[in-house]
């Protein structure tokens, strides 16, 4: 293993004395620097600097792009950060606007961390291994299992084709049979997959399977691979322990993958804490929010190439990445997976299917372009809803109870057998939904982002909504590993954009008419009462610094968390959308007939003033 020079002992850092912090994210196209300072005892975001990433030829040195991004911060603030000899950052803060106390970074350049995972049973150890790799911020290229339906030679063929950065191998419970996990190891040995970077180094493998098989695994894999052995991910069927595997992946990412990726070695020397994969940073921040506010959180990072979905539900953290669902590079994959019909159902105008496909394909080949016209904007928003919906579907498949666990069944359970397969995420019990990524952070009207999140996740009950002001969640996530209080303070003051609170009714009524009455006790002492009919959306304005008490009284067909027809009292926060009362029912049904659907969409958009009137008058583009 490559020994990395660690110049900073984090345990000796006195965070309470810090004044200035720099965090960067080396993205696949842009390197983003964020500069933070303590002002009057509070941590604040000061400014951002951005520059193209320089991971590829002809530069092959990420620190070039990094220096450019940081130089922008220097120019904007007059604060000197870069060393004159070009060898990194001035640490610590020297006073007089020179130096920083802490420098941390995330990275996803060059495709991020790409992993293959393998286990014995597809729905058990392989699924646990997949959760661990995803939680560590990896893109999972393939999940291999003895019972995945592919004959051994097909598995080998596939492994050879993939060039992962790392493999996670799990399988078997401690004390159980070792045969199958060794068989999987033998397949890996036979395939001898090559690492993505560099021809001359050994591919790292993390073994997190049956501890009794360790000696055999060493014998099979030890000489050809860089083998790390950690605690079993499923020591017994009823328990999943992903942390040791996740930590090993993070360590190997820093020490091995980053050290071999072209252009990265300098960055690993500059930072004071290990470089994290960007999605791991983002996930870390969602976990911090859930922990600090003691709530269940759903988050989405909707990017150009990928859609990351995060859930922190009753303490359980799950991240999934849909590597090919995105708003630019992968926009045609959303089209492929969702189909034109599902995209068009969100549009209040007719569009020729061929034209829609061409527009999206043109975005794919020229990914940095922006919508100029309202119809183009609405098409992108329609695709965003579908990308998040599909990403969330995918997420729910992994956010579910451990399978293979014997449960004592009652007669009732037998009738509800399929429940075992379902996610444990109950939308009624999600208190916050957050979004990040270019499209969600840059909607011309913030309420558009709120509506996209509501429609895509189909929130239920009382759900607060937020988005990232400027892409800062990964930075704060990696910062939170060293200094969580500062990360949270910056998050609350400068990162979070409150979009309002959605009150959504679960269920459907048989006929039109009043579905809910909401009484809001506003901060200025006013009391607003609103009755909303089934199928409609309405809102009560409430500023983003404001909170209000609401009393929600659904009709007997609907549930807002207390049971059908039961009253609920809640505290809500405001934002661009204010208090959004969504009486469209769940699951959300959009009429098949275009004219009926068009009327409905227009009424929803008008109710929230989501788009300019001009586009709502257009029937066809």
């Amino acid at each position: 293993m490559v020994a990395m020079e660690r110049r900073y002992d984090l345990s000796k850092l006195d965070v309470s004395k810090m004044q200035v912090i720099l965090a960067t994210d080396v993205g696949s196209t842009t390197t983003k620097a964020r500069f933070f300072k303590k002002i009057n005892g509070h941590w604040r975001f000061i400014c951002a600097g951005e520059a193209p990433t320089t991971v590829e030829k002809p530069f092959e040195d990420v620190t070039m792009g990094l220096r450019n991004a940081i130089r922008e911060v220097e120019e904007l603030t007059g604060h000197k950060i870069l060393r004159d000899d070009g060898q990194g950052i001035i640490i610590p803060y020297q006073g007089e606007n020179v130096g920083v106390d802490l420098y941390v970074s995330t990275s996803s350049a060059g495709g991020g961390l790409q992993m293959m995972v393998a286990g014995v049973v597809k729905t058990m150890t392989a699924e646990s291994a997949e959760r661990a790799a995803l939680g560590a911020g990896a893109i999972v290229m393939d999940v291999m299992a003895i019972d995945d339906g592919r004959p051994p030679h097909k598995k080998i063929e596939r492994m050879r084709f993939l060039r992962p950065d790392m493999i996670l191998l799990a399988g078997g419970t401690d004390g159980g049979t070792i045969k199958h996990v060794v068989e999987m190891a033998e397949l890996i040995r036979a395939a001898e997959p090559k690492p993505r970077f560099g021809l001359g180094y050994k591919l790292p493998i993390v073994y997190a399977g049956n501890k009794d098989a360790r000696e055999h695994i060493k014998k099979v894999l030890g000489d050809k691979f860089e083998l790390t052995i950690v605690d079993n991910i499923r020591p017994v069927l009823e328990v999943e322990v992903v942390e040791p595997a996740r930590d090993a992946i993070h360590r190997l990412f820093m020490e091995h993958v980053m050290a071999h990726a072209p252009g990265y070695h300098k960055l690993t020397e500059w930072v004071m804490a290990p470089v994290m994969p960007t999605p791991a940073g983002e996930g870390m921040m969602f976990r911090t929010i859930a922990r600090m506010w003691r709530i269940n959180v759903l988050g989405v990072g909707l990017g150009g190439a990928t859609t990351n979905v995060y859930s922190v539900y009753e303490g359980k953290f799950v991240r999934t990445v849909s590597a090919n669902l995105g708003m630019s590079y992968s926009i045609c994959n959303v089209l492929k997976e969702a189909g034109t019909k599902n995209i068009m159902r969100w549009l209040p105008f007719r569009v020729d299917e061929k034209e829609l496909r061409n527009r999206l394909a043109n975005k794919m080949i020229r990914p940095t372009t922006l919508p100029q016209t309202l119809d183009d904007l609405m098409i992108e928003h329609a695709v965003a809803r579908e990308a998040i919906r599909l990403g969330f579907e995918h997420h729910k498949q992994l956010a579910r109870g451990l399978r293979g666990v014997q449960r004592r069944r009652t007669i009732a359970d037998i009738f509800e057998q399929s429940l075992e397969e379902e996610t444990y995420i109950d939308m009624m019990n999600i208190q916050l939904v957050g979004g990040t990524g270019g499209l969600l952070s840059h909607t011309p009207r913030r309420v558009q982002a709120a509506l996209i999140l509501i429609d895509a996740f189909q929130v239920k009950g009382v759900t607060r909504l937020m988005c990232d002001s400027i892409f800062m969640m990964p930075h704060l996530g990696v910062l939170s590993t060293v200094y969580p209080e500062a990360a949270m303070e910056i998050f609350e003051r400068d990162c979070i954009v409150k979009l309002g609170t959605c009150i959504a009714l679960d269920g459907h009524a048989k006929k039109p008419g009043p579905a809910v009455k909401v009484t809001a006790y506003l901060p200025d002492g006013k009391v607003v009462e609103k009755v909303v009919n089934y199928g409609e959306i309405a809102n009560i304005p409430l500023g983003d610094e404001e909170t209000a008490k609401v009393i929600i009284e659904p009709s007997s067909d609907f549930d807002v968390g207390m049971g059908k027809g039961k009253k609920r009292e809640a505290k809500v926060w405001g934002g661009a959308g204010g208090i959004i009362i969504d009486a469209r029912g769940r699951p959300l049904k959009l009429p098949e007939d275009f004219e009926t659907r068009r009327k409905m969409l227009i009424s929803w958009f008008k109710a929230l003033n989501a788009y300019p009137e001009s586009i709502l008058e257009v029937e066809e583009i």
Partner: protein
Amino acid sequence: MSGKESQSAHAYTPGLRVTPLFRVRKTRRLPIPGEVLVKEGDKVNYDTIVARTNLPGDIRIISAAAILGVEPDELMHYMLKKPGDPVKKGEVIAKYRAFFGLIKSEVKSPVDGYIEHVSEVTGQVILREPPIPIEIDAYVPGIVTKVLPREGVIIECAATFIEGIFGIGGERHGEIYIAVKSPEEELTPDKITPECEGKIVVGGSYASVEVLKKAMEYGAKGVVVGGVDFKDISDFLGYEIGVAITGHEDIPMTVIITEGFGKIRMAKKTFNLLKENEGELAAINGATQIRAGVIRPEIIIPKLEVNPLELPIEEEVYVGGMQPGTKIRVIRAPYFGALAKVVKLPIPLQKVETESPVRVVEIELEDGRRVIVPRANVELFEW
């Protein structure tokens, strides 16, 4: 709007290269280390083999212990061959006898190869077939300017070089054949004739899936056209493309679009360059990768009479340098495909129809209209 203007600004999207004479550098690399067959300074033709290697052979897995009816940890005792030993197809590699030969079973090798591994845990024998040789050719005629030991070579040649925006299909060679009279003209099925065989067929603004299929049936090596419908690409391939990473499609003909999806006139400069080279041999590749490490499809028409080493090396695609008068192309609705000249580069952000405040550029379209578009929606383009 404030009167402030920039004197110059960078375009956000790099323009595509369309140049009559260019020093093309091609790295030809083996997937795994092997042997380089040429040396620095060697002149190579497009079909010269420049490097070769052996990929490890395929794997065969035999459940030997189960076949013999023995426990996995006993398997070693019954093996006639040990790891590393070569074996022939049909050769017995393990044998079990009991009760004076009354019970016997044996394991035969299903292929030629050698024993890679015998497992005492799973009872499996892993056989590896002989290595698979692979070779790479030069792709373009030129001079070997660098040998990458055990990995490959860099070949340089002087050529007319045209980048497309999207393509499918891999490396092909053929003569340039101009099938239309002007860059506006559509490539229609009647223009595809037996003459297209072995050629790279250049159309104008558009080709339908019928045209692509007909060209393929007639044995064309490639089709180069301004635009196609995205749906037609799926119909042509038989499956839908989700992510723009192409070049490995299993098709006998490469397709390159130069402008974008839909019906779009091929840029005059591109069309004229191709026309000037009618009948010349070209190397084309449809491989496209939009994300990380951009790869654009290419048309290379070698100019053997020019010494590439006398041409300047251009490492990067020219980005930036937008100023009043600069020629550009609009790459997004509502002026998608329009050619224009920069009029002004206002500094303050301006709201466009979507209500988003963005960096904009004022441009003059070919018909004289002056319009505002986001700077992100133009690319530098000589027309």
